[in-house]
């Protein structure tokens, strides 16, 4: 419950403040969101499994976002930015789907 509150506050804060993203950071934003989404769904599944841990969540969230950004950065420098981002999104997408499937099993017991 309390975690949902944090999410809501964050969204409202973002919509109200509308922070200006510096231009050099802009290409990393979408992939950072996908990576963060993966960490959040992983955490939700762990919560349902009863093995959630604050520290693991914090570390996995931050490292996910940083690594995703790093991969895009490296890809841009090597000239394969688009392909690398696609690869990252595919892997993260598969993870998100299977995590959501596990969460669904918990909720509906099916």
């Amino acid at each position: 419950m309390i975690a949902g509150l944090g999410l809501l506050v964050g969204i409202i804060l973002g919509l109200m403040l509308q922070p200006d993203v510096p231009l050099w950071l802009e290409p990393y934003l979408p992939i950072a969101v996908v990576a963060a989404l993966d960490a959040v769904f992983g955490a939700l599944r762990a919560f349902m499994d009863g093995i959630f841990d604050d520290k693991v969540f914090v570390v996995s969230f931050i490292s996910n976002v940083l690594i995703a950004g790093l991969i895009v950065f490296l890809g841009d420098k090597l000239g394969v930015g688009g392909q690398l981002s696609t690869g990252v999104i595919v892997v993260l997408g598969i993870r998100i789907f299977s995590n959501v499937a596990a969460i669904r099993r918990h909720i509906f017991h099916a």
Partner: protein
Amino acid sequence: MGLLDYVTSHSMDEDYAHVSGRKPAGGASKQPQAGLAALVILGLFGLLVATAAVQHSRTETVSESGRSEIITQIKARSAQVDSRRARIVEMRDEITTLETQFLETTNEGRALSTQLSRLGVRAGSTAVTGPGVRTVVDDAPDAISEQQQVLDKDLQKLVNALWESGAEAISINGQRLTTLSAIRHAGSAITVNFRSLSRPYVVSAIGNPDAIPARFVETQDGSAWLDLEAAYGLQFDMTSEESLTLPAANRLDLRHATTPENLR
């Protein structure tokens, strides 16, 4: 193990299992609680999502409004060009009228005026009328290769052959040929006097309508055209006309060329 299998089976961070395995057995049975750190991170996540969404919609509106702005500008500017062009034609007519009016007042002027119009016929700055031949050329029916199309060099050959056969004034699709005219390819179209032409090409030439067709086939470029017609199926049709009227050329501005001092 296949990559896809690995990704699906390890979709959740293994650290969660590691940490829970390390915990004492008593604590593991209790439902875990999300603490302050999780709250902060989730808040951060919400901020990230909202920022990304806001940023995306903002850049989208910027590029969208930019495009429509440019379109409006283009329309406004081309309308301006059209009106200026009309004004040029208007002023040119005015100049001619004033010029004739001024010259008609004196005897000397009248002589000058006659000379001017005679030179204008040669230079292409005055419209001319007279008997001549009209030549209509076009690509071969269902042309595939470039050889079956009328190219700029084909039109050049045709015009050269007409000059050689005694033509006194020539226009292509209403574009009068002058000393400054070029017949060339620009993109996929042929341009004459910087205006793009569309098929079929109508080449009107003023001259002796009885002599030109006969002389035409004797010139090198004329016979080349007959070869083109026979070999590649280009359409070529020359008819004699009792009376043709060719318009004046649009541009005849000399910006740099002047008469040398000793000839003035």
